């Protein structure tokens, strides 16, 4: 992975812009350099055991690597809704649910589907583990950032 001189001032400017506009994230690329700022209100996975995590806006800086701003954790992962929409727990009405509390899931398994504007978005497990909590109801609306599943 190549590195480049980090212009702290520029990153700060992006972070300010993020706050000012209320956007979730800003990405800036020039050549093979890329800076991505993600606001604190973005759906970032949180560790349950660390309630003091991240009061300030986390700013992630990447080089030309693919964007991967969220840390992958293996325990107590809160999977939050990346969008406002409707949650579906099974692939279609009447079909068995993708998951239930107590199920073991592997990273990448589909947990549920969120629909918005008639676009179907499967949400995948960011980590392997056991479903310890499933606080959402089938065919009900979910808000941005709302916890969908907790994987322990």
């Amino acid at each position, binding site marked *: 992975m190549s590195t480049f001189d980090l212009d702290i001032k520029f990153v700060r400017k992006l972070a300010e812009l993020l706050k000012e506009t209320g956007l979730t*994230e800003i990405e800036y690329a020039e050549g093979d350099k890329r800076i991505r700022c993600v606001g604190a209100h973005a759906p970032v996975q949180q560790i349950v055991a660390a309630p003091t995590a991240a009061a300030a806006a986390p700013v992630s800086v990447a080089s030309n690597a693919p*964007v991967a701003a*969220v840390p992958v954790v293996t325990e107590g992962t809160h999977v939050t809704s990346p969008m406002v929409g409707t949650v579906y727990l099974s692939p279609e009405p009447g079909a068995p649910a993708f998951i239930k509390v107590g199920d073991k899931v592997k990273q990448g398994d589909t947990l549920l589907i969120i629909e*918005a*504007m*008639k676009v179907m978005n499967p949400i995948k497990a960011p980590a392997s583990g056991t479903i310890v909590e499933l606080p959402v109801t089938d065919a009900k609306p979910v808000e941005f950032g709302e916890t969908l599943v907790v994987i322990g």
Partner: protein
Amino acid sequence: MTPSFFRIQELDVTASTNAVAKQAAEAGEAEGLVVRALRQTAGKGRLGRTWESPEGNLYASVLLRPRSITLQWAALYSFAAALAVHDAVLKACPEASLQLKWPNDVLVEDKKISGILIETAPVVQNLVDWIVVGVGINVASHPQEALYPTTSLSEQGASVTVDAILTYFLQSLEQWRQTLYYDGFCPLRKAWLSDAKMGPMVVRTPTGEIQGDFAGIDPKGGLILRLAEGAETVIQTGDIFFL
């Protein structure tokens, strides 16, 4: 001419073109693939609804991989697809009265002539890996029993081949997908609103029915509904029935 961005894979029969396109996407297929079948044995609409797929109509699914877009943004491809179907149908029947129904239905003489099913796959939480835009356009026939009144191009008096409709659709989709990616949602919203069906409606949402007047679409594509008391609400998911 089909834009060079697209590569068409022709199938006689398949269960669902979306399923084939999704499988290709998962296997790493590059964007621009169009899976097209003469008929489908398990054509799907939203929520697992059956999409009748006899020979003579268009069934196609397009694989897109827009870079670094969020799931929230991917929802806007619903409008790109609707506008592309709208343009294709208008080209086939220039005299017809066309309207758009939120978010992606195309109505001719108040009847549904097409269906769109869009599916995505997120990479990490909210960045999109791929989008499959599935489209069905009634060319030769239309279902008699459906949730909404339906029509077909042939019923509207258009003599057009399925191949030609696919080409028109892809030509327009190419423009709208580029506009959405490079210029944002604003031009799509404007184009969509200029042909939107307005008026009082009932929206069947997952939490119940809401009645109101069409009051536009918000910058994220949500349906703005003016309620009886003058208040407004924004709908992200629901089936619309005009009163």
